[in-house]
Protein backbone atom coordinates (compact mmCIF):
# COMPACT_ATOMS: atom_id res chain seq x y z
CA UNK A 1 0.00 0.00 0.00
CA UNK A 2 1.57 3.21 -1.19
CA UNK A 3 -0.26 6.48 -0.74
CA UNK A 4 0.87 7.57 -4.22
CA UNK A 5 -1.27 4.84 -5.67
CA UNK A 6 -4.38 6.15 -3.99
CA UNK A 7 -5.43 8.47 -6.87
CA UNK A 8 -5.08 5.65 -9.39
CA UNK A 9 -7.01 3.26 -7.17
CA UNK A 10 -9.72 5.82 -6.65
CA UNK A 11 -10.09 6.15 -10.41
CA UNK A 12 -9.97 2.42 -11.06
CA UNK A 13 -12.53 1.54 -8.43
CA UNK A 14 -15.08 4.00 -9.82
CA UNK A 15 -14.91 3.27 -13.55
CA UNK A 16 -18.19 4.95 -14.45
CA UNK A 17 -17.41 8.17 -12.63
CA UNK A 18 -13.90 8.14 -14.07
CA UNK A 19 -15.15 7.48 -17.59
CA UNK A 20 -17.60 10.37 -17.37
CA UNK A 21 -14.87 12.78 -16.35
CA UNK A 22 -12.57 11.47 -19.08
CA UNK A 23 -15.28 11.87 -21.71
CA UNK A 24 -15.90 15.43 -20.56
CA UNK A 25 -12.24 16.40 -20.85
CA UNK A 26 -11.98 14.52 -24.14
CA UNK A 27 -14.81 16.66 -25.47
CA UNK A 28 -13.02 19.78 -24.41
CA UNK A 29 -9.74 18.80 -26.00
CA UNK A 30 -11.49 17.55 -29.14
CA UNK A 31 -13.06 20.96 -29.55
CA UNK A 32 -9.77 22.75 -29.00
CA UNK A 33 -7.64 20.47 -31.10
CA UNK A 34 -10.00 19.58 -33.93
CA UNK A 35 -11.50 23.03 -34.18
CA UNK A 36 -8.19 24.84 -34.17
CA UNK A 37 -6.77 22.39 -36.68
CA UNK A 38 -9.64 22.88 -39.12
CA UNK A 39 -9.57 26.64 -38.71
CA UNK A 40 -5.84 26.86 -39.26
CA UNK A 41 -5.99 24.49 -42.22
CA UNK A 42 -8.61 26.63 -43.90
CA UNK A 43 -6.66 29.76 -43.20
CA UNK A 44 -3.40 28.45 -44.61
CA UNK A 45 -5.34 27.04 -47.56
CA UNK A 46 -6.53 30.54 -48.38
CA UNK A 47 -3.11 32.07 -47.84
CA UNK A 48 -1.51 29.62 -50.22
CA UNK A 49 -4.26 30.24 -52.71
CA UNK A 50 -3.69 33.96 -52.53
CA UNK A 51 0.04 33.69 -53.00
CA UNK A 52 -0.52 31.28 -55.86
CA UNK A 53 -2.57 33.87 -57.65
CA UNK A 54 0.31 36.15 -58.44
CA UNK A 55 -1.69 37.64 -61.29
CA UNK A 56 -4.17 40.47 -60.86
CA UNK A 57 -6.02 39.69 -64.07
CA UNK A 58 -6.34 36.57 -66.16
CA UNK A 59 -7.43 36.80 -69.78
CA UNK A 60 -9.12 33.79 -71.34
CA UNK A 61 -10.77 33.20 -74.70
CA UNK A 62 -14.38 34.40 -74.58
CA UNK A 63 -15.52 30.94 -75.60
CA UNK A 64 -13.82 29.44 -72.56
CA UNK A 65 -15.82 31.65 -70.25
CA UNK A 66 -19.04 30.04 -71.40
CA UNK A 67 -17.68 26.60 -72.00
CA UNK A 68 -15.88 25.98 -68.76
CA UNK A 69 -16.27 26.88 -65.17
CA UNK A 70 -13.37 29.26 -65.23
CA UNK A 71 -12.86 29.29 -61.51
CA UNK A 72 -12.55 25.55 -61.50
CA UNK A 73 -9.86 25.56 -64.12
CA UNK A 74 -7.92 28.54 -62.90
CA UNK A 75 -8.18 27.88 -59.21
CA UNK A 76 -8.86 24.24 -58.88
CA UNK A 77 -7.14 22.87 -61.92
CA UNK A 78 -10.06 20.76 -63.07
CA UNK A 79 -8.70 19.23 -66.25
CA UNK A 80 -9.70 21.30 -69.23
CA UNK A 81 -8.22 23.07 -72.22
CA UNK A 82 -8.98 26.12 -74.32
CA UNK A 83 -6.93 28.13 -76.72
CA UNK A 84 -6.76 31.47 -78.44
CA UNK A 85 -4.48 32.95 -81.01
CA UNK A 86 -1.08 34.03 -79.83
CA UNK A 87 -1.61 37.54 -81.26
CA UNK A 88 -3.80 38.35 -78.32
CA UNK A 89 -0.75 38.41 -76.13
CA UNK A 90 0.59 41.39 -78.10
CA UNK A 91 -2.83 43.04 -78.31
CA UNK A 92 -3.44 42.79 -74.62
CA UNK A 93 0.13 43.84 -73.90
CA UNK A 94 -0.55 47.21 -75.53
CA UNK A 95 -3.19 48.12 -72.96
CA UNK A 96 -1.98 50.80 -70.58
CA UNK A 97 -1.07 49.95 -67.00
CA UNK A 98 0.29 46.46 -67.45
CA UNK A 99 3.50 45.74 -65.59
CA UNK A 100 3.98 42.07 -66.32
CA UNK A 101 2.33 39.81 -68.83
CA UNK A 102 2.84 36.15 -69.58
CA UNK A 103 0.98 33.43 -71.43
CA UNK A 104 0.07 30.00 -70.14
CA UNK A 105 -0.82 26.84 -72.00
CA UNK A 106 -3.33 24.34 -70.72
CA UNK A 107 -3.64 20.76 -71.70
CA UNK A 108 -5.81 18.19 -70.02
CA UNK A 109 -4.72 14.61 -70.19
CA UNK A 110 -7.20 11.81 -70.51
CA UNK A 111 -7.64 8.52 -68.79
CA UNK A 112 -6.94 6.36 -71.81
CA UNK A 113 -3.83 4.31 -72.35
CA UNK A 114 -1.69 7.21 -73.50
CA UNK A 115 -1.28 8.79 -70.09
CA UNK A 116 -0.36 7.80 -66.59
CA UNK A 117 -3.38 9.60 -65.13
CA UNK A 118 -5.85 12.38 -65.96
CA UNK A 119 -4.19 15.63 -64.99
CA UNK A 120 -4.17 19.30 -65.79
CA UNK A 121 -0.95 20.22 -67.53
CA UNK A 122 0.01 23.86 -67.20
CA UNK A 123 2.74 25.33 -69.36
CA UNK A 124 4.40 28.64 -68.63
CA UNK A 125 6.81 30.79 -70.55
CA UNK A 126 10.08 30.81 -68.61
CA UNK A 127 11.06 34.18 -70.09
CA UNK A 128 8.02 36.11 -68.93
CA UNK A 129 6.40 33.99 -66.25
CA UNK A 130 5.87 35.64 -62.88
CA UNK A 131 3.30 33.38 -61.23
CA UNK A 132 4.48 29.80 -61.52
CA UNK A 133 8.24 30.15 -61.32
CA UNK A 134 8.41 31.81 -57.88
CA UNK A 135 6.32 28.99 -56.59
CA UNK A 136 8.34 26.29 -58.27
CA UNK A 137 11.53 27.93 -57.11
CA UNK A 138 10.62 27.10 -53.52
CA UNK A 139 11.04 23.45 -54.39
CA UNK A 140 13.17 23.31 -57.49
CA UNK A 141 16.07 25.63 -58.10
CA UNK A 142 17.03 24.73 -61.66
CA UNK A 143 15.45 25.73 -64.96
CA UNK A 144 12.98 23.27 -66.46
CA UNK A 145 14.27 21.56 -69.57
CA UNK A 146 12.19 19.93 -72.27
CA UNK A 147 10.00 17.09 -70.99
CA UNK A 148 10.91 17.97 -67.47
CA UNK A 149 8.01 18.56 -65.12
CA UNK A 150 7.29 19.76 -61.64
CA UNK A 151 4.28 18.08 -60.04
CA UNK A 152 1.64 19.21 -57.54
CA UNK A 153 1.79 17.95 -54.00
CA UNK A 154 -1.02 15.45 -54.46
CA UNK A 155 0.44 13.62 -57.40
CA UNK A 156 1.73 10.27 -56.46
CA UNK A 157 5.18 10.31 -57.97
CA UNK A 158 8.65 11.41 -57.02
CA UNK A 159 11.68 13.25 -58.33
CA UNK A 160 13.54 11.10 -60.85
CA UNK A 161 10.47 9.12 -61.90
CA UNK A 162 8.76 9.59 -65.22
CA UNK A 163 5.14 10.18 -66.08
CA UNK A 164 3.79 9.43 -69.53
CA UNK A 165 1.56 11.92 -71.34
CA UNK A 166 0.41 11.22 -74.89
CA UNK A 167 3.16 8.63 -75.18
CA UNK A 168 5.82 11.13 -74.21
CA UNK A 169 7.80 10.35 -71.09
CA UNK A 170 8.33 13.32 -68.82
CA UNK A 171 10.82 13.35 -65.96
CA UNK A 172 9.76 14.66 -62.59
CA UNK A 173 12.39 17.14 -61.40
CA UNK A 174 10.51 18.67 -58.53
CA UNK A 175 7.43 18.32 -56.36
CA UNK A 176 5.53 21.31 -55.05
CA UNK A 177 4.38 21.99 -51.51
CA UNK A 178 0.71 21.26 -51.00
CA UNK A 179 -1.60 24.22 -51.39
CA UNK A 180 -4.80 22.57 -50.32
CA UNK A 181 -6.31 23.42 -53.71
CA UNK A 182 -6.78 21.35 -56.82
CA UNK A 183 -3.56 22.89 -58.09
CA UNK A 184 -2.02 20.10 -56.09
CA UNK A 185 -3.20 17.82 -58.90
CA UNK A 186 -1.59 19.88 -61.67
CA UNK A 187 1.64 19.32 -63.57
CA UNK A 188 3.82 22.26 -64.52
CA UNK A 189 6.16 22.41 -67.47
CA UNK A 190 7.60 24.97 -69.87
CA UNK A 191 5.50 26.16 -72.78
CA UNK A 192 7.90 24.29 -75.02
CA UNK A 193 7.11 20.97 -73.39
CA UNK A 194 3.37 21.61 -73.41
CA UNK A 195 3.42 22.50 -77.09
CA UNK A 196 5.24 19.32 -77.83
CA UNK A 197 2.65 17.39 -75.85
CA UNK A 198 -0.18 19.17 -77.67
CA UNK A 199 1.36 18.02 -80.93
CA UNK A 200 1.59 14.47 -79.64
CA UNK A 201 -2.00 14.53 -78.54
CA UNK A 202 -3.08 15.73 -81.96
CA UNK A 203 -0.98 13.10 -83.61
CA UNK A 204 -2.83 10.56 -81.54
CA UNK A 205 -6.12 12.21 -82.45
CA UNK A 206 -6.97 12.67 -78.83
CA UNK A 207 -7.24 16.41 -78.61
CA UNK A 208 -9.46 17.31 -81.53
CA UNK A 209 -10.69 20.71 -80.44
CA UNK A 210 -8.03 22.66 -82.16
CA UNK A 211 -6.52 22.43 -85.53
CA UNK A 212 -4.31 25.36 -84.85
CA UNK A 213 -0.57 25.19 -84.90
CA UNK A 214 0.52 24.81 -81.28
CA UNK A 215 3.14 27.45 -81.89
CA UNK A 216 0.41 29.96 -82.68
CA UNK A 217 -1.86 29.42 -79.68
CA UNK A 218 -2.01 30.19 -75.99
CA UNK A 219 -4.59 29.38 -73.29
CA UNK A 220 -4.52 32.28 -70.85
CA UNK A 221 -2.73 35.53 -70.30
CA UNK A 222 -1.59 36.39 -66.79
CA UNK A 223 -1.34 40.06 -66.02
CA UNK A 224 0.18 42.05 -63.20
CA UNK A 225 -1.05 45.62 -63.11
CA UNK A 226 1.36 48.49 -62.63
CA UNK A 227 1.42 50.41 -59.37
CA UNK A 228 -0.87 53.39 -59.59
CA UNK A 229 -3.28 51.80 -62.05
CA UNK A 230 -6.63 50.53 -61.00
CA UNK A 231 -6.98 46.84 -61.66
CA UNK A 232 -10.66 47.19 -62.56
CA UNK A 233 -9.86 49.94 -65.06
CA UNK A 234 -7.25 47.80 -66.77
CA UNK A 235 -9.63 44.85 -66.84
CA UNK A 236 -12.41 46.95 -68.32
CA UNK A 237 -10.03 48.38 -70.91
CA UNK A 238 -9.18 44.89 -72.07
CA UNK A 239 -12.80 43.81 -72.18
CA UNK A 240 -13.85 46.89 -74.13
CA UNK A 241 -11.00 47.15 -76.59
CA UNK A 242 -10.18 43.56 -77.36
CA UNK A 243 -12.88 41.32 -78.70
CA UNK A 244 -13.32 37.61 -78.23
CA UNK A 245 -11.38 37.51 -75.00
CA UNK A 246 -12.53 37.88 -71.48
CA UNK A 247 -10.49 39.48 -68.70
CA UNK A 248 -11.27 38.29 -65.18
CA UNK A 249 -10.05 39.65 -61.87
CA UNK A 250 -8.44 36.89 -59.86
CA UNK A 251 -9.44 38.55 -56.62
CA UNK A 252 -13.07 38.32 -57.57
CA UNK A 253 -12.59 34.62 -57.99
CA UNK A 254 -11.08 34.12 -54.59
CA UNK A 255 -13.10 36.71 -52.75
CA UNK A 256 -15.96 34.25 -52.74
CA UNK A 257 -13.66 31.68 -51.25
CA UNK A 258 -12.27 34.17 -48.77
CA UNK A 259 -15.74 35.26 -47.72
CA UNK A 260 -17.02 31.79 -47.13
CA UNK A 261 -13.75 30.93 -45.45
CA UNK A 262 -14.10 33.86 -43.08
CA UNK A 263 -17.66 32.75 -42.42
CA UNK A 264 -16.66 29.16 -41.80
CA UNK A 265 -13.72 30.14 -39.62
CA UNK A 266 -16.05 32.36 -37.63
CA UNK A 267 -18.55 29.57 -37.17
CA UNK A 268 -15.79 27.23 -36.09
CA UNK A 269 -14.47 29.77 -33.59
CA UNK A 270 -17.96 30.29 -32.17
CA UNK A 271 -18.41 26.53 -31.94
CA UNK A 272 -15.07 26.10 -30.18
CA UNK A 273 -15.99 28.86 -27.76
CA UNK A 274 -19.42 27.37 -27.14
CA UNK A 275 -18.07 23.89 -26.53
CA UNK A 276 -15.42 25.45 -24.33
CA UNK A 277 -17.82 27.35 -22.16
CA UNK A 278 -20.10 24.37 -21.97
CA UNK A 279 -17.31 21.92 -21.18
CA UNK A 280 -15.82 24.35 -18.65
CA UNK A 281 -19.10 24.78 -16.84
CA UNK A 282 -19.80 21.06 -16.94
CA UNK A 283 -16.25 20.21 -15.90
CA UNK A 284 -16.36 22.59 -12.95
CA UNK A 285 -19.78 21.28 -11.99
CA UNK A 286 -18.62 17.68 -12.42
CA UNK A 287 -15.57 18.17 -10.23
CA UNK A 288 -17.60 20.06 -7.67
CA UNK A 289 -20.16 17.24 -7.67
CA UNK A 290 -17.38 14.66 -7.48
CA UNK A 291 -15.77 16.35 -4.49
CA UNK A 292 -19.15 16.85 -2.89
CA UNK A 293 -20.06 13.21 -3.35
CA UNK A 294 -16.73 12.19 -1.85
CA UNK A 295 -16.70 14.73 0.97
CA UNK A 296 -16.94 12.03 3.57
CA UNK A 297 -14.15 10.01 2.01
CA UNK A 298 -11.92 13.10 2.04
CA UNK A 299 -12.96 13.87 5.63
CA UNK A 300 -11.85 10.37 6.64
CA UNK A 301 -8.47 11.05 5.04
CA UNK A 302 -8.23 14.20 7.15
CA UNK A 303 -9.25 12.26 10.28
CA UNK A 304 -6.34 9.86 9.92
CA UNK A 305 -3.92 12.75 9.54
CA UNK A 306 -3.83 13.81 5.90
CA UNK A 307 -2.95 17.49 5.64
CA UNK A 308 -4.96 19.86 3.49
CA UNK A 309 -2.15 20.21 0.98
CA UNK A 310 -1.70 16.44 0.80
CA UNK A 311 -5.41 15.97 0.22
CA UNK A 312 -5.36 18.68 -2.44
CA UNK A 313 -2.50 16.87 -4.14
CA UNK A 314 -4.44 13.62 -4.16
CA UNK A 315 -7.44 15.35 -5.73
CA UNK A 316 -5.20 17.14 -8.21
CA UNK A 317 -3.42 13.93 -9.14
CA UNK A 318 -6.77 12.35 -9.91
CA UNK A 319 -7.85 15.28 -12.02
CA UNK A 320 -4.49 15.39 -13.80
CA UNK A 321 -4.75 11.70 -14.69
CA UNK A 322 -8.32 12.15 -15.85
CA UNK A 323 -7.63 15.22 -17.94
CA UNK A 324 -4.44 13.79 -19.38
CA UNK A 325 -6.32 10.69 -20.49
CA UNK A 326 -9.24 12.77 -21.68
CA UNK A 327 -6.88 15.14 -23.47
CA UNK A 328 -5.08 12.34 -25.28
CA UNK A 329 -8.44 10.81 -26.15
CA UNK A 330 -9.75 14.05 -27.55
CA UNK A 331 -6.63 14.59 -29.62
CA UNK A 332 -6.78 11.07 -31.01
CA UNK A 333 -10.44 11.58 -31.77
CA UNK A 334 -9.67 14.90 -33.44
CA UNK A 335 -6.91 13.26 -35.44
CA UNK A 336 -9.23 10.46 -36.46
CA UNK A 337 -11.83 12.96 -37.62
CA UNK A 338 -9.76 15.70 -39.23
CA UNK A 339 -7.03 13.79 -41.04
CA UNK A 340 -8.85 11.04 -42.90
CA UNK A 341 -11.70 13.39 -43.73
CA UNK A 342 -9.69 16.42 -44.71
CA UNK A 343 -10.52 15.76 -48.36
CA UNK A 344 -14.16 15.45 -47.48
CA UNK A 345 -14.04 18.65 -45.45
CA UNK A 346 -12.39 20.33 -48.41
CA UNK A 347 -15.02 19.23 -50.89
CA UNK A 348 -17.98 19.67 -48.54
CA UNK A 349 -16.98 23.17 -47.55
CA UNK A 350 -15.67 23.92 -51.02
CA UNK A 351 -12.66 25.56 -49.41
CA UNK A 352 -8.95 25.01 -49.76
CA UNK A 353 -7.76 22.97 -46.82
CA UNK A 354 -4.09 22.82 -46.00
CA UNK A 355 -3.08 20.93 -42.87
CA UNK A 356 -0.27 22.48 -40.84
CA UNK A 357 3.08 20.70 -40.73
CA UNK A 358 3.78 17.85 -38.32
CA UNK A 359 5.70 20.11 -35.96
CA UNK A 360 2.80 22.53 -35.70
CA UNK A 361 0.34 19.71 -35.20
CA UNK A 362 2.46 18.25 -32.39
CA UNK A 363 2.71 21.69 -30.84
CA UNK A 364 -1.04 22.09 -31.05
CA UNK A 365 -1.52 18.66 -29.48
CA UNK A 366 0.85 19.56 -26.64
CA UNK A 367 -0.96 22.86 -26.10
CA UNK A 368 -4.30 21.09 -26.11
CA UNK A 369 -3.04 18.64 -23.50
CA UNK A 370 -1.69 21.46 -21.38
CA UNK A 371 -5.00 23.28 -21.64
CA UNK A 372 -7.09 20.28 -20.66
CA UNK A 373 -4.80 19.43 -17.74
CA UNK A 374 -4.86 23.05 -16.59
CA UNK A 375 -8.61 23.29 -16.85
CA UNK A 376 -9.03 19.99 -15.01
CA UNK A 377 -6.61 21.15 -12.34
CA UNK A 378 -8.42 24.47 -12.02
CA UNK A 379 -11.77 22.74 -11.66
CA UNK A 380 -10.38 20.26 -9.12
CA UNK A 381 -8.54 22.96 -7.15
CA UNK A 382 -11.64 25.06 -7.02
CA UNK A 383 -13.57 22.15 -5.56
CA UNK A 384 -10.72 21.18 -3.24
CA UNK A 385 -10.27 24.70 -1.91
CA UNK A 386 -13.97 25.01 -1.26
CA UNK A 387 -13.83 21.71 0.61
CA UNK A 388 -10.81 22.70 2.69
CA UNK A 389 -12.61 25.81 3.96
CA UNK A 390 -14.93 23.60 5.98
CA UNK A 391 -13.90 21.98 9.25
CA UNK A 392 -13.59 18.23 8.87
CA UNK A 393 -15.77 17.78 11.92
CA UNK A 394 -18.67 19.45 10.13
CA UNK A 395 -18.29 17.25 7.06
CA UNK A 396 -18.16 14.07 9.12
CA UNK A 397 -21.41 15.05 10.72
CA UNK A 398 -23.20 15.72 7.41
CA UNK A 399 -22.82 12.14 6.31
CA UNK A 400 -24.96 10.85 9.13
Amino acid at each position, binding site marked *: *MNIRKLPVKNL*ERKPVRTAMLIILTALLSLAVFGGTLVERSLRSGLTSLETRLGADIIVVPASAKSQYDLESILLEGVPGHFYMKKDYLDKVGKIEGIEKISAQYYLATVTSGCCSMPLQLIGFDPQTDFTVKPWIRQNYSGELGEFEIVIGGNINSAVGKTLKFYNQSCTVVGTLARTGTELDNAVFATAQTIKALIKSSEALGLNGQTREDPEQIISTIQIKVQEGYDIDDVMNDINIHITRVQAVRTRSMISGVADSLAGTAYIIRVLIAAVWVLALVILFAAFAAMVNERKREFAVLR*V*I*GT*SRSRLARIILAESALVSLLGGVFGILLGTAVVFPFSNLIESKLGLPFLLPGTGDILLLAALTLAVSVLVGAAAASYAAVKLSRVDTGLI*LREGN
Partner: protein
Amino acid sequence: MILNAEIISKKYMRKSGEANFFYAVRETSLALTAGSITGVIGRSGSGKSTLLNMMAGLLSPSAGKVTLDGTDLYALSDKELSVLRNQNIGVIPQGQTGLDSLTALDNIKLPYALYHNDRQIDDRADELLHAVGIAHLADAYPSELSGGELRRLAIARALIMQPGIILADEPTGDLDDENTATVLGLLRKAADDGAAVLLVTHDADARQYADVLYRMDAGVLAEA
Protein backbone atom coordinates in the same frame (compact mmCIF):
# COMPACT_ATOMS: atom_id res chain seq x y z
CA MET B 1 -0.34 11.40 27.17
CA ILE B 2 -2.91 13.88 28.33
CA LEU B 3 -5.50 15.44 26.08
CA ASN B 4 -7.09 18.39 27.75
CA ALA B 5 -10.16 20.36 26.73
CA GLU B 6 -10.13 23.67 28.57
CA ILE B 7 -13.47 25.44 28.87
CA ILE B 8 -14.36 24.83 25.24
CA SER B 9 -17.58 25.92 23.57
CA LYS B 10 -19.07 25.48 20.15
CA LYS B 11 -21.62 27.93 18.91
CA TYR B 12 -23.86 27.21 15.92
CA MET B 13 -26.32 29.38 14.09
CA ARG B 14 -29.83 28.07 14.20
CA LYS B 15 -30.89 27.18 10.67
CA SER B 16 -34.24 28.92 10.82
CA GLY B 17 -33.46 31.87 13.02
CA GLU B 18 -32.08 35.27 12.20
CA ALA B 19 -29.07 36.15 14.32
CA ASN B 20 -29.90 33.60 16.93
CA PHE B 21 -27.44 30.92 17.86
CA PHE B 22 -27.06 28.15 20.36
CA TYR B 23 -24.26 26.27 22.04
CA ALA B 24 -23.78 22.64 20.98
CA VAL B 25 -21.07 22.48 23.63
CA ARG B 26 -20.97 25.07 26.39
CA GLU B 27 -17.88 25.91 28.46
CA THR B 28 -16.87 22.33 28.93
CA SER B 29 -13.61 20.97 30.30
CA LEU B 30 -12.46 17.40 30.03
CA ALA B 31 -9.11 15.73 30.62
CA LEU B 32 -8.26 12.34 29.13
CA THR B 33 -5.51 10.52 30.95
CA ALA B 34 -3.27 7.69 29.91
CA GLY B 35 -4.38 4.22 30.80
CA SER B 36 -8.04 4.97 31.35
CA ILE B 37 -11.29 5.02 29.45
CA THR B 38 -13.36 8.16 29.87
CA GLY B 39 -16.99 7.51 29.03
CA VAL B 40 -19.37 10.20 27.83
CA ILE B 41 -23.00 9.29 27.57
CA GLY B 42 -25.93 11.43 26.61
CA ARG B 43 -28.93 11.71 24.36
CA SER B 44 -28.61 12.16 20.68
CA GLY B 45 -28.05 15.82 19.91
CA SER B 46 -26.59 16.61 23.32
CA GLY B 47 -23.22 17.63 21.80
CA LYS B 48 -21.10 14.50 22.27
CA SER B 49 -19.77 14.35 18.71
CA THR B 50 -19.14 18.08 18.70
CA LEU B 51 -17.01 17.73 21.84
CA LEU B 52 -15.13 14.73 20.46
CA ASN B 53 -14.41 16.40 17.11
CA MET B 54 -13.09 19.48 18.86
CA MET B 55 -10.81 17.31 20.97
CA ALA B 56 -9.62 15.52 17.82
CA GLY B 57 -8.50 18.78 16.25
CA LEU B 58 -11.15 18.42 13.57
CA LEU B 59 -13.51 21.19 14.61
CA SER B 60 -12.29 24.52 15.89
CA PRO B 61 -13.96 25.58 19.15
CA SER B 62 -15.71 28.93 19.33
CA ALA B 63 -13.94 29.49 22.65
CA GLY B 64 -11.46 27.67 24.87
CA LYS B 65 -8.58 25.47 23.82
CA VAL B 66 -7.55 21.85 23.44
CA THR B 67 -4.05 20.82 24.43
CA LEU B 68 -2.12 17.61 23.96
CA ASP B 69 0.63 17.37 26.56
CA GLY B 70 0.52 21.16 26.72
CA THR B 71 0.47 21.81 22.96
CA ASP B 72 -2.47 23.90 21.84
CA LEU B 73 -3.89 21.93 18.88
CA TYR B 74 -5.55 24.90 17.22
CA ALA B 75 -2.39 27.00 17.41
CA LEU B 76 -0.62 24.52 15.14
CA SER B 77 -0.44 24.79 11.38
CA ASP B 78 -2.62 22.41 9.42
CA LYS B 79 0.40 20.33 8.51
CA GLU B 80 1.67 20.09 12.08
CA LEU B 81 -1.78 19.28 13.40
CA SER B 82 -2.23 16.61 10.72
CA VAL B 83 1.04 14.91 11.60
CA LEU B 84 0.24 15.15 15.29
CA ARG B 85 -3.18 13.58 14.78
CA ASN B 86 -1.73 10.91 12.54
CA GLN B 87 0.80 9.90 15.16
CA ASN B 88 -1.00 10.47 18.42
CA ILE B 89 -4.75 10.51 18.02
CA GLY B 90 -6.69 7.53 16.77
CA VAL B 91 -10.17 8.73 15.82
CA ILE B 92 -13.08 6.39 15.25
CA PRO B 93 -15.72 8.66 13.69
CA GLN B 94 -19.41 8.03 13.84
CA GLY B 95 -20.82 5.97 10.98
CA GLN B 96 -19.21 4.21 7.99
CA THR B 97 -15.74 5.49 7.27
CA GLY B 98 -13.96 2.92 5.12
CA LEU B 99 -12.39 4.23 1.91
CA ASP B 100 -14.24 2.53 -0.96
CA SER B 101 -11.27 2.22 -3.26
CA LEU B 102 -9.07 0.35 -0.79
CA THR B 103 -9.26 -3.18 0.57
CA ALA B 104 -9.87 -3.68 4.27
CA LEU B 105 -6.17 -4.34 4.78
CA ASP B 106 -5.11 -1.22 2.87
CA ASN B 107 -7.67 0.83 4.78
CA ILE B 108 -6.10 -0.29 8.02
CA LYS B 109 -2.58 0.42 6.80
CA LEU B 110 -3.48 3.82 5.36
CA PRO B 111 -2.60 5.99 8.41
CA TYR B 112 0.85 4.45 8.40
CA ALA B 113 1.23 4.69 4.62
CA LEU B 114 0.48 8.41 4.77
CA TYR B 115 3.86 9.26 6.21
CA HIS B 116 5.89 6.11 5.70
CA ASN B 117 6.76 4.24 2.59
CA ASP B 118 7.57 0.69 3.57
CA ARG B 119 6.06 -2.59 4.51
CA GLN B 120 7.10 -2.56 8.16
CA ILE B 121 3.48 -2.28 9.16
CA ASP B 122 2.34 -5.52 7.52
CA ASP B 123 2.73 -7.60 10.68
CA ARG B 124 0.88 -5.16 12.89
CA ALA B 125 -1.89 -4.77 10.32
CA ASP B 126 -2.24 -8.52 10.17
CA GLU B 127 -2.27 -8.75 13.94
CA LEU B 128 -4.99 -6.09 14.16
CA LEU B 129 -7.08 -7.77 11.48
CA HIS B 130 -7.04 -10.90 13.61
CA ALA B 131 -7.67 -9.00 16.82
CA VAL B 132 -10.82 -7.36 15.42
CA GLY B 133 -11.81 -10.63 13.78
CA ILE B 134 -11.88 -9.66 10.11
CA ALA B 135 -8.66 -11.36 8.97
CA HIS B 136 -10.62 -13.37 6.41
CA LEU B 137 -11.83 -10.09 4.88
CA ALA B 138 -8.39 -8.56 4.36
CA ASP B 139 -8.86 -8.31 0.60
CA ALA B 140 -12.53 -7.37 0.67
CA TYR B 141 -13.65 -3.84 -0.16
CA PRO B 142 -15.76 -1.78 2.27
CA SER B 143 -18.83 -2.20 0.06
CA GLU B 144 -18.61 -5.92 0.75
CA LEU B 145 -18.50 -5.55 4.55
CA SER B 146 -21.33 -5.48 7.08
CA GLY B 147 -21.88 -2.59 9.50
CA GLY B 148 -20.17 -4.44 12.35
CA GLU B 149 -17.22 -5.41 10.18
CA LEU B 150 -16.84 -1.82 9.00
CA ARG B 151 -16.81 -0.58 12.57
CA ARG B 152 -14.17 -3.11 13.51
CA LEU B 153 -12.20 -1.99 10.47
CA ALA B 154 -12.35 1.62 11.72
CA ILE B 155 -11.11 0.52 15.12
CA ALA B 156 -8.20 -1.41 13.67
CA ARG B 157 -7.33 1.67 11.57
CA ALA B 158 -7.44 3.88 14.66
CA LEU B 159 -5.11 1.52 16.51
CA ILE B 160 -2.55 0.94 13.76
CA MET B 161 -0.33 3.86 14.80
CA GLN B 162 -0.53 2.82 18.47
CA PRO B 163 -1.75 6.30 19.35
CA GLY B 164 -1.55 7.72 22.86
CA ILE B 165 -5.08 9.05 22.47
CA ILE B 166 -8.11 7.18 21.13
CA LEU B 167 -11.37 9.02 20.46
CA ALA B 168 -14.27 6.71 19.70
CA ASP B 169 -17.60 8.20 18.64
CA GLU B 170 -20.33 5.64 19.28
CA PRO B 171 -18.15 2.72 18.21
CA THR B 172 -20.80 0.24 19.27
CA GLY B 173 -23.85 1.94 17.78
CA ASP B 174 -25.94 -0.54 15.75
CA LEU B 175 -23.69 -3.46 16.72
CA ASP B 176 -24.99 -6.71 18.22
CA ASP B 177 -23.96 -7.80 21.69
CA GLU B 178 -21.11 -9.99 20.55
CA ASN B 179 -19.63 -7.27 18.34
CA THR B 180 -20.14 -4.70 21.09
CA ALA B 181 -18.20 -6.83 23.52
CA THR B 182 -15.38 -7.34 21.01
CA VAL B 183 -15.10 -3.62 20.24
CA LEU B 184 -15.21 -2.49 23.86
CA GLY B 185 -12.72 -5.20 24.77
CA LEU B 186 -10.33 -3.82 22.16
CA LEU B 187 -10.62 -0.30 23.56
CA ARG B 188 -10.14 -1.64 27.07
CA LYS B 189 -6.98 -3.38 25.96
CA ALA B 190 -5.68 -0.20 24.28
CA ALA B 191 -6.25 1.69 27.54
CA ASP B 192 -4.55 -1.03 29.54
CA ASP B 193 -1.62 -0.70 27.14
CA GLY B 194 -1.41 2.97 28.09
CA ALA B 195 -3.72 4.88 25.77
CA ALA B 196 -6.05 7.63 26.94
CA VAL B 197 -9.44 6.63 25.56
CA LEU B 198 -12.59 8.70 25.09
CA LEU B 199 -15.65 6.53 24.59
CA VAL B 200 -18.71 8.43 23.46
CA THR B 201 -21.93 6.50 23.45
CA HIS B 202 -25.63 6.78 23.95
CA ASP B 203 -25.54 3.22 25.15
CA ALA B 204 -25.62 2.92 28.95
CA ASP B 205 -24.18 -0.62 28.80
CA ALA B 206 -20.83 0.88 27.90
CA ARG B 207 -20.54 2.35 31.37
CA GLN B 208 -19.12 -0.87 32.75
CA TYR B 209 -16.07 -0.44 30.53
CA ALA B 210 -15.42 3.19 31.50
CA ASP B 211 -13.13 4.22 34.34
CA VAL B 212 -14.73 7.65 34.57
CA LEU B 213 -18.16 8.45 33.30
CA TYR B 214 -19.70 11.75 32.29
CA ARG B 215 -23.10 12.68 31.07
CA MET B 216 -23.59 15.28 28.36
CA ASP B 217 -26.78 17.27 28.52
CA ALA B 218 -27.52 20.16 26.16
CA GLY B 219 -23.84 20.84 25.64
CA VAL B 220 -22.91 20.73 29.30
CA LEU B 221 -20.84 17.94 30.77
CA ALA B 222 -21.50 16.62 34.28
CA GLU B 223 -20.22 13.62 36.20
CA ALA B 224 -22.62 10.76 35.96
